[in-house]
């Protein structure tokens, strides 16, 4: 790993990402800055970040079928979610922390503020984490989350999704996003998805059915590759 002081990253394309103010997603109206972001040069404060290789992980941290097990398996479609974390140059990001959280098969989160009608599943917590391997690969075993209604427009429903948080090599590469499932008819109706303008950009968040990675007679697999900001060559004026 290069010296953090000397790392430089490709600038984030803010026309590709969602804007802060996306009025169809109502909560953004009061939670978006009105002033412009102030651009600053990347210093070690931005180009360094935590390496979680020494975080002690539990045996089932990446297996949501087992990590909240109270004696039975959770209800729902058993799935594998796997992929690679790479940077914009295609370079794998090894040993980086990938965390995910989701609703259960009925669309209910195990969170004290979630009061949706659908019941909690006594055998499902809905949280996972993993470190990528030396080639940037990660995998989780879980159940497919259900869609659920939410208070935005009166008839808005979230497509089935899994939240992902990926650290990457520096705090400037940190990304929180949501995985959606190929073919879900709710995707094009969702105001949170539509906060992203470019249909090609939306495609970066859609996991593909990956029949080759299925566990036959057991679970379907979805592939979700994640691209973080690229670390580029640094040119210095002074030596």
């Amino acid at each position, binding site marked *: 790993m290069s010296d*953090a002081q000397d790392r430089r990253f490709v600038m984030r394309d803010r026309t*590709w*990402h*969602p804007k802060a103010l996306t009025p169809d*997603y*109502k*909560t*953004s*109206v*009061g*939670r*978006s*800055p*009105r*002033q412009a972001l*102030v*651009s*600053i*040069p*990347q*210093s070690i*404060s*931005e180009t*360094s*970040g*935590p*390496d*979680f290789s*020494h*975080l002690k*992980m*539990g045996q089932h*941290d990446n297996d949501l079928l087992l990590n909240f097990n109270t004696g039975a398996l959770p209800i729902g479609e058993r799935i594998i979610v796997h992929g690679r974390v*790479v940077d914009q*140059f295609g370079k794998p990001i090894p040993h980086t922390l990938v*965390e*995910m*959280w989701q609703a259960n098969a009925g669309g209910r989160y*195990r*969170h004290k*503020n*979630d009061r949706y009608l659908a019941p909690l599943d006594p055998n499902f*917590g809905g*949280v996972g984490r993993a470190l990528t391997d030396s080639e940037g690969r990660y995998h989780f075993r879980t159940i497919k989350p259900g869609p659920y209604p939410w208070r935005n427009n009166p008839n808005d429903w979230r497509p089935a999704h899994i*939240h992902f*948080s990926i650290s990457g090599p520096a705090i400037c590469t*940190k*990304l*929180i*996003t949501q995985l959606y499932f190929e073919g879900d008819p709710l995707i094009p109706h969702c105001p*949170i998805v539509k906060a992203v303008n470019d249909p*090609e*950009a*939306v495609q*970066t*968040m859609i996991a593909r059915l990956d029949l080759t990675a299925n566990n036959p007679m057991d679970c379907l697999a979805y592939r979700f590759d*994640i*691209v973080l*900001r*690229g670390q580029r060559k640094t040119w210095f004026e002074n030596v």
Partner: protein
Amino acid sequence: MTEINLLRETTSQTAGPYVHIGLALAAAGNPTREQEIWNQLAKPEAPGEHITVIGRVFDGNGHLVRDSFLEIWQANHEGVYDEDYNLDKPFNGFGRTATTFDAGSEWTIETVKPGVVKAADGRPQAPHINVALFARGINIQLATRIYFDDEAEANAADPVLNLIEQPERRQTLIATREEQAGKVVYRFDIRIQGENETVFFDF
């Protein structure tokens, strides 16, 4: 368009109202795992000046944002960013916190005051803590910095603060020092929008 052979970054989405179940398990009311990343960056034995930083987050209507989640990154007391996150060590430069769901709704971190680090051009940067703010309604994290009001001279020369055109806006990044029962507490409120809107950065 002009980018040659460059993959496009996966796009950001809001962390949502239930971010706690994934990244702040105790706050969600759920059992924790063997090790969690949370808000005690410094154990009592860590060298440096021990401080507590407490803050609130306000939306554009002046209401408290009670479901916000923050990530913290800072240098140690000597101005060194130690990237090896290891809970066996007395100090880690990374931490997480969240505003509480109660009426007062504050976030807290226990840490040590960071030292001076160099800017991209080699000039010293005043002591600061880097913050990324996530919440329902925030489509992509908002990045800001916490500076300290007892570092007036260093703040006046800080190359990042000086990139903020209006001097009064620089004040939105300065935490205020208090002493509470012999403990050093800095207060730092974030205003996402409107009057005294906090400065957020792009880098």
